[in-house]
């Protein structure tokens, strides 16, 4: 998978001659290898960093550092009154990258948009089964049911006809799976008998061109000088794949990389004290929670759930489990999402009141299971420890807790069961910055027996989130979501535990980096001081 060899070798040699401190090359110590370079085929953030944020554009884009949606390859769009037709006016003069095997003969147009979606949704499309395509996000976001058809109005106008109104559609189209591929390149590779090259030697319209990838070692990019926005400030972008967090920090200190993600929580204070390292931080777009099974007694009683929530010392969890790199969650959506209801008051930590409330509900000698995830996640870096703290808190109010855990696949599967015994520790990281992506997926009636681990189907809440889904403006939707959060707090299907704080350590010479609330690591707009 080596392209533009001559140019790149010359480029790298020039860089080598200029010395390691070249202002033009940014080295990012990434945490792992991308699974491939077609973002629609994968679901991991590591892959999205290496593909959608560098090589590709989408019709709409998330403004870096926010969850606001801005025009991308679509200059503008109109939504029909009934909310089922989205007409996108496409940007003209946008160039695709080229490589050793392909030189684009035309600019980006409507055919590329239609191809990018139909390859995922149309089983007859020749690319539907290429690279074992499972199109997890396309399916997970219900696109096959939602998109009735995509119509080419003219070369620079496409119309998405939906089966029902879907307010988050514009945000959905800014997600990685909606990256726009070159149909011309796809056709050329199909003809050459190497369709998998779409995934292995990617061509996009993004700010960086793919140069080469060596698994578990390095991904190289160079600047796209023909980019439709201002070209990137850095000429060469290198992902030095470094799985161990301590080693990433050593490399950062040694000047072998400029930016690193996912530091060890234990190292953060030392990093902040180090004059050679800047640490940026932002609240993560995630929530960690304890979901009761609201269909089984006594957890079908909201007062019991509320009482248990009052017994949990969340500050101790932040201190011990997150080691300071988290903040207490009071709502089921993180504060970085619009419609976050800051007026809501969290349940006070009050074991005596909790005990009294349980007694008032006639609950005594309660014993329950708490499920601890076997894996680390940003929203829960140590579920076992968290479960132990909750076990101790519950024991203070006379509730006996047994901690259980399963292998991750088993855990995900068994925790979905409607008759599941016990409360489950789990969490969620947002995909598109839309409250629907948290509230409907995790707490909607459709998710019962699936992603709704509380097995909670509460009609007033459901009505609010369903109504919000079809309203045209963000302001109108936000009102309903704020109300929904009030209902959630009263009903307490979960104990909301924490939102993580994302730390990004970098060298002082890195300028213009913004921590992206959606979790991606984005280098367009970043420069290196001389």
């Amino acid at each position: 998978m080596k392209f533009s060899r001559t140019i790149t070798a010359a480029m790298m040699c020039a860089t080598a001659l200029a010395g390691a401190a070249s202002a033009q090359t940014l080295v990012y110590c990434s945490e792992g290898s991308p699974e491939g370079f077609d973002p629609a085929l994968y679901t991991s953030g590591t892959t999205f960093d290496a593909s959608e944020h560098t090589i590709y554009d989408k019709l709409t884009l998330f403004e870096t550092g926010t969850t606001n949606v801005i025009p991308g390859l679509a200059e503008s769009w109109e939504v029909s009154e009934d909310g089922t037709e989205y007409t996108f006016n496409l940007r003209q003069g946008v160039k695709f990258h080229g490589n050793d095997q392909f030189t684009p003969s035309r600019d980006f147009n409507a055919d590329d948009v239609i191809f990018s979606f139909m390859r995922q949704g149309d089983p007859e499309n020749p690319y539907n089964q290429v690279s074992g395509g499972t199109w997890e996000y396309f399916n997970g976001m219900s696109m096959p049911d939602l998109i009735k058809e995509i119509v080419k109005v003219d070369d620079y106008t496409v119309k998405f006809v939906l089966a029902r109104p879907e307010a988050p559609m514009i945000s959905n189209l800014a997600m990685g799976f909606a990256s726009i591929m070159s149909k011309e390149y796809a056709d050329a590779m199909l003809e050459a008998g190497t369709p998998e090259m779409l995934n292995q030697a990617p061509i996009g319209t993004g700010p960086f061109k793919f140069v080469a990838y060596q698994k578990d070692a390095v991904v190289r990019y160079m600047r796209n000088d023909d980019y439709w926005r201002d070209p990137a400030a850095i000429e060469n972008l290198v992902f030095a794949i470094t799985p161990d967090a301590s080693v990433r920090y050593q490399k950062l200190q040694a000047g072998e990389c400029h930016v690193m993600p996912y530091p060890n929580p234990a190292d953060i204070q030392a990093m902040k004290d180090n004059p050679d390292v800047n640490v940026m931080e932002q609240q993560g777009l995630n929530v960690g929670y304890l979901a009761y099974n609201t269909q089984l007694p006594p957890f079908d009683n909201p007062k019991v759930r509320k009482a248990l929530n009052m017994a949990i010392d969340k500050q101790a969890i932040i201190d011990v489990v997150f080691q300071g790199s988290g903040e207490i969650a009071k709502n089921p959506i993180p504060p970085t999402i619009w419609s976050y209801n800051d007026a809501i008051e969290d349940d006070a930590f009050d074991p005596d009141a909790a005990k009294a409330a349980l007694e008032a509900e006639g609950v005594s000698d309660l014993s329950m299971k708490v499920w601890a995830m076997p894996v680390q996640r940003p929203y829960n870096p140590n579920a076992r420890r968290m479960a132990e703290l909750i076990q101790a808190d519950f024991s203070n109010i006379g509730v006996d807790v047994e901690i259980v855990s399963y292998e991750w696949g088993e855990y995900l599967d068994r925790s979905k069961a409607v008759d599941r015994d016990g409360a489950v520790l789990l969490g969620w990281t947002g995909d598109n910055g839309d409250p629907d992506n948290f509230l409907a997926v995790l707490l909607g009636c459709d998710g019962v027996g699936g992603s709704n681990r509380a097995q909670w189907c509460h009609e007033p809440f459901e009505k609010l989130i369903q109504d919000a889904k079809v309203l045209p403006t963000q302001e109108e939707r936000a009102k309903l979501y704020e109300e929904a959060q009030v209902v959630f707090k009263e009903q307490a299907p979960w104990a909301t535990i924490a939102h993580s704080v994302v730390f990004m350590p970098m060298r002082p010479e890195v300028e213009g980096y913004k921590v992206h609330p959606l979790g991606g690591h984005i280098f367009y707009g970043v420069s290196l001081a001389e």
Partner: protein
Amino acid sequence: MLKFLLSRLLTFVPTFIGVTLISFSFIRLLPGDPIIVMAGERGVSAERYAELQAQFGFDRPLVIQYWDYMTGVLRGDLGTSFVTKKPVFEEFFALFPATLELSICAMIFAVVLGLPAGIIAAINRGKLFDRALMSTALVGYSMPIFWWALLMIIVFSGWLGWTPVSGRISLLFYFDDVTGFMLIDSLLSGQAGAFRSAAVHLILPTIVLGTIPLAVIARQTRSAMLEVLSEDYIRTARAKGLPPNRVTFIHALRNALIPVVTVVGLLVGTLLGGAILTESIFSWPGIGKWMLDSIYRRDYPVVQGGLLLIAVMVMIVNLTVDVLYGLINPKIRKA
């Protein structure tokens, strides 16, 4: 010798079938479903689950799945990774040269230092050097690899700045893979400084990976030498007035080497199986981390294919060791 080789090769067949059976069944015996793991917290609907099961072939009886796997193996097709969607064979051989290069360097490091250390310790049995060496070897043997690796990085890369922190070569060098061995490819590239960079990047991972084999070889050589040195024929050789060096290196060492070669063979097999921790800490793009990730993700084709290929490599190493036995000791060759 040919007969000896053929008889050894024949033993490969049941081992090969055994490995395919074990790798096929063990990964399936582990709890956890690859489709559920792939879907993560998002989950997957029952219809979609059924579709994916059909797509991956999990809806067919296990016997049929094994038959398909075996016929694929015999055609040289080890399947395609569920995760990266790339052929297992291609992925393995893209990564294996890195593991092999590091393993060879670590083994050279261990043998070159371990063998003389063991011999000197045996000759000086009970003296200060012997005690110091054996204590050091014990420490080396018991050292947690991740701790040792991080300590080396902090001291030699962080404080002293003598070696790079991780990777196979400075990112400033870029050239085509010819052999996959960075030392050779860097020479072939003709780029000034590339070979030096590749060599310097090898130092710390070689020392870290070679530490345990070094300790094992030193201890094994010492005990084998002590045993041989107390044999009657050595006493006879000495009584005949042969020079001490000749007795030690010609008469004693050759016989003492047989158990040492066995240990070295086993250690090479272990190293080829993937120095998971060393590779992870030094961002070394080898097969160890690849296999580990695949087990976590329940990537059946990679686990099955990777294990099979590693087993074949270990079998080849064992065969080489057997041949070496024959060369060292003609009695074995004739047996």
